[in-house]
């Protein structure tokens, strides 16, 4: 196959780009690949920014094999996004994914975004933060009580994050199972 940039030399570098979950494959020769800034090249494609691809590249590359096996077990209890799906699609499945994959992505986020903390607008209206026993909201979304499944899920979720932080993957797996169990029994209003 010829290089798609110069159309002269043989392409020996394959570059996979994921934009908003859509994969595109490109083939370049070594010389063109060296001359190109991939981030910029892909910016001419339509859709979102391709930095997401960078993220999965970074994540995919640097993790040692035995650790990778542990990582592979990580699944977001809320939406079911697995570590592998996350790495391949560079896409969060839900708000809780941020907590679940937080430790894995911190450094990469900093690299990707040049920062790791938000500055700027905050929501004007916010529902009560987690540990509170706030009664229902205007449109009937109840926050739940201390012993409600929701509260328990939050508790296990905190334990899960802590376990991941300590790299205690077995504990994390237990927490995850608990959360799943609780979610499973509560599917009617999920």
């Amino acid at each position, binding site marked *: 196959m010829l290089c798609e940039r110069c159309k002269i030399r043989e392409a020996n570098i394959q570059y996979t780009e994921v934009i*908003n979950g859509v994969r595109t494959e490109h083939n370049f020769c070594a010389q063109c690949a060296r001359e190109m800034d991939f981030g910029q090249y892909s910016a001419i494609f339509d859709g979102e920014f391709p930095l997401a691809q960078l993220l999965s590249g970074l994540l995919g590359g640097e993790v040692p094999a035995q650790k990778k096996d542990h990582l592979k077990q990580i699944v977001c209890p809320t939406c079911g996004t697995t570590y592998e799906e996350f790495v391949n699609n560079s896409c969060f499945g839900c708000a809780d994914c941020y907590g679940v994959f937080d430790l894995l992505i911190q450094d990469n986020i900093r690299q990707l975004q040049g920062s790791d903390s938000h500055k700027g607008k905050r929501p004007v209206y916010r529902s009560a933060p987690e540990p509170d026993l706030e009664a229902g909201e205007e449109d009937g979304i109840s926050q739940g009580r201390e012993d409600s499944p929701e509260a328990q899920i939050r508790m296990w979720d905190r334990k899960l994050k802590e376990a991941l932080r300590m790299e205690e993957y077995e504990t994390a797996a237990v927490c995850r199972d608990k959360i799943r169990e609780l979610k499973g029994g509560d599917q009617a209003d999920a």
Partner: protein
Amino acid sequence: MLKWFEQPEQESGNIVCSKVRLARNWSEYVFPSRLSQEQSKELLSKLGEGLKDLGDLDGRDYESAYLSDLTELDRRALQERRILNSSILEKKSPMSLLITREEDISLVLNGMDHIRIQVLLPGLRLAEALKTADQIDDYVNARFDYAFDEKYGYLTSFPTNMGTGMRATAMVHLPSLSMGKKFPAMLNDMGRFGVSIRGVYGEGRENYGALYEISNQKTLGRTEKELTDLVNKVAIQLNDQENQVREMSLKRHRLEREDEVYKSYGVMKYARRLTMKDAMTFLSQLMSGVCDGLVKLEEPCPVFRLMLGIQTANLQKLSDRPLGKEELDMARAAYLRSELPGIF
């Protein structure tokens, strides 16, 4: 009702339009990629119900539609007019669109995020676009609690949007600057300033019409104002550089420039067949000719409107049957013959 790009009172400069887009998610649901068809429908009906009086906020008329109720051609035409992006067109699950008749304000629901608010204005008016988007954002937020994190800001499907969830974009016409040898290197360099530039129309690596979009690359760790100011600054700089090159060429080669502009006009006025590439090139010539005062249009008409008019989906929509490639080139020429205003 004129759409934003049809409004005649626009000044004819190099900066075609400004766009601000905010990505938001409702804390009650997982993100769109993880929603089942049923959940997507449920989400859409709740969002639709909550936002049905959005017009009360600004006295504007919003139309709403499920994207699946529009024809493929309508969706592609919306993409040409910068309302939908290509990832949305490829997405299969239920989505809906709230849009003003002028098409300056639009909300895509359950696209890549639950709610994406977009404000699109002619000229360089990013601060104004941000202000409008911000008001709509608060209106939505009063009804739907957002997924927000103290550290990561607004939580979005893609890590490239987290933080402010904001993308500010300015579309700039750079016909002379983009001819320069250093232009590709300059585009690459822009990454260092935290902005990204890409061609708007074209095929492969070839750009048609010399229109470029400048956007903030990063979304985390800087305020909305800092990000829009950055895009604003780069847009002004590129605009100034473009004008410098053009002034120089006008001084040295005025006759050649006039000749190019009038020839482009003449071809568009009489041609029977025009490829996309040729038509975009001629319109680009006309755009800079109007901007530099080399020609005056009899009736005020933003040249960008004509550029949108000759895009494929729009031409297909104007025709009563599907057009082949040759027929499209004929339809494009016919469109320009009838829409091109007189000059003096």
